[in-house]
C-alpha cells in the first residue's frame, strides 16, 4: 500500500513540475499582438472592398448573360458597361459638393526672405502635395485649370528659354491663377487644408490662396479627361 502511495506521489510531483516549466510571457509578445491587430484590420477592410467590387462586376456580367445572345440587349449591356468604366477612369465630368482653391501671385504680400520665390521654384511639388492631401482626405475628383487628374496625369514644372518656368498639367501648360477644383467630402478636405496650413504657407511665399467652399449638391463640376489613353504598351491580362 505504501509503495503505491510513494509511486503516485512521485508521479504527481513530476506532473506538476512539467506544468510549471512553461516559459514566461516576454515583453516582445505585446508588440507582435498590436502588429497582428493592425494587419487584421487592413485585411478586413480589403475584404469589404473586394466584396463590393465582385458584387458590382457580377451585376454587369449578369446583364450580359441575361441578354441570351439578343444583339440589342448585348449592345445595351455593353453601353452600360462602357458608362461605368468611363466614370471610374475619369472620362466623365463629375458634379457634387466640393471646394475650389485659387492660387495667384501677390507681390503686395509681405516679403519673407526664407520663403520668397519658393513657390515659383517648386510650384509643381507644392500643388502635387495639395492634390495628394485632398485625395487622401475625401476628394473624389480633382481638376487643375480644367485639366482632370487621372491615373496617368502629371504635374510638372518645365523650364523654358529665358529661365522662365511653366507649369504643365497633363503636359498642357497652364497659367496663373492656378485653380484646383475638387469634388468630394467638403468637411474632410477643408480640415486637411487647415491642418496643413496651406493658406499660411502660400501667403509666406507671396501667393494669394483663396479657398471657396461649395457645399451644394452640384456645387462644383470637374470636367472629364480628354487626353490620350493608355493601351499601347500595357495590355490586360486574361484569366480564364
Amino acid at each position, binding site marked *: *500500500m505504501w509503495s*503505491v502511495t510513494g509511486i*503516485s506521489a512521485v508521479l*504527481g*510531483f513530476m506532473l506538476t513540475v512539467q*506544468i510549471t516549466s512553461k516559459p*514566461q*510571457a516576454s515583453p516582445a*509578445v*505585446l508588440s507582435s*499582438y498590436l502588429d*497582428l*491587430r493592425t*494587419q*487584421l484590420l*487592413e*485585411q478586413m477592410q*480589403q475584404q469589404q*472592398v*473586394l466584396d*463590393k*467590387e*465582385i*458584387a458590382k*462586376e*457580377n451585376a454587369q*456580367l449578369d446583364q450580359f448573360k441575361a*441578354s441570351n445572345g439578343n*444583339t440589342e440587349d448585348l449592345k445595351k*449591356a*455593353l453601353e452600360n458597361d*462602357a458608362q461605368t*468604366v468611363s*466614370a*471610374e*477612369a*475619369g*472620362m466623365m465630368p463629375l458634379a*457634387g459638393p466640393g471646394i475650389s482653391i485659387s492660387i495667384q501671385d501677390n507681390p503686395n504680400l509681405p516679403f519673407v526672405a526664407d520663403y520668397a520665390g519658393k513657390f515659383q521654384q517648386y510650384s*509643381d511639388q507644392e500643388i*502635387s502635395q495639395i492634390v*495628394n492631401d485632398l*485625395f487622401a*482626405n475625401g476628394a*473624389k475628383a480633382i481638376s487643375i485649370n480644367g485639366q482632370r487628374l*487621372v*491615373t*496617368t496625369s*502629371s504635374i*510638372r514644372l518645365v523650364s523654358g528659354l529665358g529661365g522662365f518656368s511653366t507649369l504643365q498639367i497633363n503636359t498642357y501648360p497652364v497659367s496663373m491663377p492656378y485653380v484646383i477644383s475638387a469634388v468630394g467630402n467638403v468637411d474632410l478636405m477643408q480640415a486637411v487644408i487647415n491642418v496643413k496650413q496651406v493658406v499660411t504657407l502660400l501667403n509666406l511665399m507671396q501667393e494669394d490662396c483663396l479657398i471657396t467652399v461649395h457645399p451644394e449638391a452640384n456645387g462644383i463640376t470637374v470636367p472629364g*479627361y480628354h487626353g490620350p*489613353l*493608355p493601351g499601347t*504598351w*500595357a*495590355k*490586360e*491580362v*486574361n484569366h*480564364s
Partner: protein
Amino acid sequence: MSTKMKLTLSLTVVSMALGLMVSLQYRQISLSRLTSGGSWSPSDTEEQKMEAQLTALKNANSTAQQQLATITTQISLYEKQSAGSNQLLQQLQSRLEDERILGGLTPVQGPGISVTLMDGIATGQNIESVLTHDWDVRSVINELFTAGAEAVSINDYRVVATSAIYCTGPVVRINDHRTGAPFVIKAIGDPKTLQSALDIQGGVLDALRSRNLRVSDPQQVPSLTIPAFTGNTPSSPGGSGS
C-alpha cells in the same frame, strides 16, 4: 478491516494527496503570472487565434482577387461578342479596354522598367534626410507618368489617380495599405523612354541620390505584370458618384 476496504482507503488518501499537490502548483503559477511585471500580456492561444484568422483572411482576399480577375475576363469576352462585326461598337469596345487600363481596374502586362528606392545609411544626425519620404516616391511616380508610363505600381500596389501616397510615421500608406522601404516601383511603357527619363542628369533619381538615398539603376524589363487596383473608387457603392 478487509483488504478491499484497506485498498479503497489508501487509494483515496493517495488521490487526495495528488490532487492537493496539483492544485497548489496551479495556484502558484497563476499567482506568479499576475504579479510578473504588473502588465497584461495576451495569452499565447489568443495570439494563435489571431494569426490563424489573419492567414484565413489573406487567403480569402487572394481568392477574391482571382475571382474578380476571372469575372472581368468574362465581361471582356462578352464585350467583344456584343461589338460583333459592327465597327462602331468594336471601337467602343476597344476604347473600353483602354479606359479600364486608365482606371487601373484590371491587371495588365507589358514591357517597362523597374527601380528600387531604399533608405540611405544615416551618419550621425542626418537621419531625416536619408529616409525615403512620401514626396520622394511621389516625385518618381510623377516623372514616370510624365514620360508616358501607362501603369505603375509601388510594392505591387497599383497607382491610380486617387492613390494618395503619404507618410504615416515609419511606413508609407498607399491605397489604404501600409508599406515600407525598400520601395520597388514598376512601370509599364516604352522601356527606353522611361529609363532615360529617370536617368536624366540632375533628374529626380539624381536628386534622391544626392541625399544619399540608395536608388537602384532603372532596369528595363521585357514583361511586367501589374495587379489591378483594389480600393474605393468614386462611383463604388461605398461613395456617392454623380
